[in-house]
């Protein structure tokens, strides 16, 4: 009898357990998100994390082991990043007429949001690995977790920072647009996609199709620009942060 129980307990150390826990948590989070009418604060990223964070310590599985169990899921981040070419391609068509200012805006915007995050964290005394984890915080997560490897940051911190950035950006957008008297839906959408990536894009669709398309475009372009520039620029930036 005792032996059987031991064998049962061993189950928590199999990938099956990690995958089941992950998928069940996500399913639960989708349900909560739907019930909340897609409030950013109930974003599946946050809600799905809660059961995992509670269960893992209870069954004595540490984070490294859980990461190994769920490797199959993490692997899909690669194809998911490649997949971003599709919405980018679709949205390039819809905004062809303002392509030039959009490219300028993307370049400037990507630099601004990365510089503000890096500057603040550095100024408050965070070490280089932490600062490096924040550099890609305004870009969509699959790209961010890839890029963070080139800045010597922590993947988990980058993933968390990206998610919280998205949520804060989506929540702050309404008041900021009112304060700055923005009526142009293209500006609203583009700002949301640029600063708050996928979560901001979902928020932008509440302003309408046009805002959503601009947000999606900003998300794709900003991620692309940051991914292409940061690995080259980072050694130089890191040197100056000392």
């Amino acid at each position, binding site marked *: 009898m005792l032996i059987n129980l031991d064998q049962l307990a061993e189950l928590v150390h199999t990938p099956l357990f990690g995958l089941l826990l992950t998928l069940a948590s996500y399913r639960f989070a989708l349900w909560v998100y739907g019930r909340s009418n897609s409030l950013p604060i109930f974003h599946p990223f946050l809600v799905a994390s809660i059961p995992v964070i509670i269960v893992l310590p209870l069954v004595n599985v540490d984070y490294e082991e859980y990461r190994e169990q769920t490797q199959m899921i993490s692997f*899909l981040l690669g194809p998911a990043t490649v997949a971003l070419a599709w919405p980018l391609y679709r949205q390039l068509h819809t905004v062809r007429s*303002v392509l030039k200012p959009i490219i300028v805006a993307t370049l400037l915007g990507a630099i601004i949001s990365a510089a503000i995050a890096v500057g603040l964290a550095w100024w408050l005394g965070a070490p280089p690995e932490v600062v490096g984890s924040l550099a890609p915080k305004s870009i969509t997560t699959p790209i961010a977790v890839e890029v963070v*490897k080139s800045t010597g940051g922590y993947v988990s911190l980058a993933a968390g920072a990206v998610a919280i950035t998205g949520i804060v950006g989506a929540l702050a957008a309404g008041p900021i647009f009112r304060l700055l008297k923005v009526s142009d839906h293209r500006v609203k959408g583009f700002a949301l996609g640029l600063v708050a990536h996928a979560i901001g894009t979902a928020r932008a669709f509440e302003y309408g199709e046009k805002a959503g398309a601009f947000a999606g475009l900003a998300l794709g372009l900003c991620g692309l620009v940051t991914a292409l520039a940061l690995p080259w620029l980072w050694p130089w930036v890191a040197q100056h942060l000392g």
Partner: protein
Amino acid sequence: MIDGLLILLLFQFFGEVIIRLTGIPLPASVVGMVLLLLALLLEAPFTQRVAPAAGGLIKHISLLIFPLGVGIVLQWHRYEEYALALGVAVVLGTILSMIVVTLMLKKLLGGKHREPTSKPAGRGGDHAD
């Protein structure tokens, strides 16, 4: 679905090949994304079939990400010391970026508002987030 997955893996593989050949410091998947975008823009055969797989993966991107994000709590001892810097940089930094970027966009896009904006209505449909 299978066609789409095949295309995605193939372009990721191309990205990997290019990175290994050239040694450029970019993520293979990002190079794959650029290559796929080019292929789509050049209307390469079959590439449109990527749609279902791409849409599915992007729709459930949170599922792929949050197992990484839980590390922020489970490894909190690593970040504890810098909680203030992190909180300020992420929350305040985001609000600040949002304000600066919005002001910049008003300048950049605002001027062009009257001229060529009469576009045909956007093709609705599969906007993934």
